[in-house]
């Protein structure tokens, strides 16, 4: 098998084969062969292979996927469930949608293999409500997979296996918080999407109190490739500690926004200049958010040499998140950007925890005051302290997601905030 390097990289999640969403085309290109291979080995072997691959979750936290699966109890009478997370509501993220549209059978094949590995007989693919068009595309692909006996009742006929899994699409109805895994489970149960206190963790006590695994759409779509070509093959793609292909969504002030499939470890500057066509009007970069709006923003002078993988981005002071790269040119008003981002978290906070509910509201008020020309320099320290009070003091990670942009935008763009206040506010002087 050819060694994949940055320059000869051939996309495997979105390979650009015409009509790949059709089941016969998918089959013609080797589709559902990984499933046959998987069913011939034990669930434990599959988990070992995925561990060996080094695959880490693409939903934001980069958690090792094989390890997560190994938390599922083997000896239990309870039913087990798999939830595939396609809530995709993090601002700047639009990658899972491409899989629904262009490679739905890869996701279905990965879902069946994962269900077999963890022992789930039912899997739900959770898709955000606004993606109704993509819900229909997934439902069509699923119907075809049922018909061909890769899912459901007919599996024994097609695959000669006792193993059977049903896959259903569960459509959300507009709530960012439902992407958080415990909220997502409440939403599948038909409840308000409040996050649950952890522990207990989903592998012990998930959907309807049963063992449950939650993985992102892109994570699951890597699984058939790992089974087909082996964990060792996968492991040598991209960055050493965070290997594999990465769907990088580039938006904002670039010439060619879009989703680019590249190996992890690709230079952030290559993503922006080589693939996304550089900055509009050849302007300078003021700021890049590398992983969706929750991740700490980097200043334009902080991105040189930074690579799109968990380790490199952490060293740079940010995180890979959903790999939604948002590029802002030198004319961007950072006060406005932070105000808009903060408004998002205020609107989407479920309100369960006081620090998140009150903190996001308070931070937004202070930022709006600054935008109205009534800011004070002390407001900047106030904002940082509000962020510090939210972080780590809440039931779910939405609190941290709200706190990081506030703290890091203020500290990394402090000059601009101070100048804004001095220029616009009579109250500026401390």
């Amino acid at each position: 098998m050819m060694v994949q390097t940055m320059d000869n990289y051939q996309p495997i999640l979105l390979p650009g084969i015409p009509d790949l969403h059709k089941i016969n085309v998918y089959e013609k290109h080797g589709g559902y062969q990984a499933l046959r291979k998987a069913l011939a080995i034990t669930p434990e072997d599959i988990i070992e292979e995925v561990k060996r691959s080094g695959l880490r979750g693409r939903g934001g936290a980069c958690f090792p996927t094989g390890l997560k699966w190994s938390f599922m109890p083997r000896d239990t009478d309870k039913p087990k469930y798999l939830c595939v997370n396609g809530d995709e509501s993090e601002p700047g993220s639009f990658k899972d949608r491409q899989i629904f549209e262009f490679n739905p059978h890869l996701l279905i094949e990965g879902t069946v293999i994962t269900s077999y590995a963890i022992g789930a007989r039912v899997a739900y693919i959770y898709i955000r409500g606004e993606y109704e068009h993509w819900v229909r595309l997934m439902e069509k692909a699923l119907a075809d997979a049922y018909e061909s006996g890769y899912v459901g009742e007919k599996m024994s006929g097609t695959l000669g296996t006792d193993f059977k899994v049903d896959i259903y699409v569960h459509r959300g109805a507009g709530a960012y918080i439902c992407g958080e895994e415990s909220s997502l489970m409440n939403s599948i149960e038909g409840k308000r999407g409040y996050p649950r206190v952890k522990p207990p963790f989903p592998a012990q006590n998930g959907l309807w109190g049963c063992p449950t695994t939650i993985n992102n759409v892109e994570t699951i779509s890597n699984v058939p490739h790992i089974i087909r070509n082996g964990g060792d093959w996968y492991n040598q793609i991209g960055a050493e500690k965070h290997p594999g292909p990465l769907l990088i969504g580039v938006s904002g002030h670039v010439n060619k926004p879009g989703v680019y499939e590249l190996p992890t470890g690709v230079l952030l500057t290559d993503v922006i200049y080589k693939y996304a066509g550089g900055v509009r009007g050849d302007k300078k970069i003021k700021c890049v958010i590398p992983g969706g709006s929750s991740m700490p923003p980097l200043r334009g002078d902080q991105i040189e040499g930074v690579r799109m993988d968990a380790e490199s981005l952490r060293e740079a002071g940010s995180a890979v998140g959903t790999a939604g790269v948002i590029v802002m040119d030198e004319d961007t008003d950072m006060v406005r950007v932070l105000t808009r981002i903060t408004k998002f978290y205020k609107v989407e906070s479920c309100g369960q925890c006081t620090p998140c509910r009150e903190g996001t509201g308070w931070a937004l008020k202070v930022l709006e005051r600054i935008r109205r020309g009534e800011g004070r320099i002390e407001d900047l320290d106030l904002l940082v302290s509000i962020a510090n009070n939210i972080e780590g003091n809440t039931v779910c990670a939405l609190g941290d997601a709200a706190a990081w942009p506030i703290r890091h935008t203020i500290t990394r763009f402090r000059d601009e905030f101070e100048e804004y206040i001095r220029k616009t506010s009579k109250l500026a002087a401390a």
Partner: protein
Amino acid sequence: MFTEEEHRKVQEIRSHYPTAQAAVMSVLHLYQDKYGYISFEGMQYVAELLEIPVEHVLGVVTFYEMYHDHPIGKFHLQVCTNVSCLLRDSDTVLETISKRLGIAPGETTDDGTFTVTEVECLGSCGTAPMMSVNKEYKENLTPEKINEIIDALLAS
């Protein structure tokens, strides 16, 4: 209220889950598709259909942004103003729409044809600025394109 075919659809949805409560979101989508919004009577109907307390249905309708408990315009223009769209000038999108229809975000035209709202990221950041019109995504918007979209809606 539901036709026989819709009742079959409800039964099918119900069969996907071990509890009736879990079917509520899909059944509410079905109901709203048919009636445009979910009145309290609608919530009672869905509750009876699934044999679950109406409080649960009410709780779900009020939690999720996409369910409307009152009528809205025939065409719902939802303009994303989150960060990637903001950077690609969603201001102009809102301005163009407001000028053309004479309403601000959150309002409905007097004849009940259009409702305009500002919404959060719709997962279309690479084709910003964008809006959704009822269920359809309209991407890479320009003032000309917006006016064409509105013309087409008025003619439909």
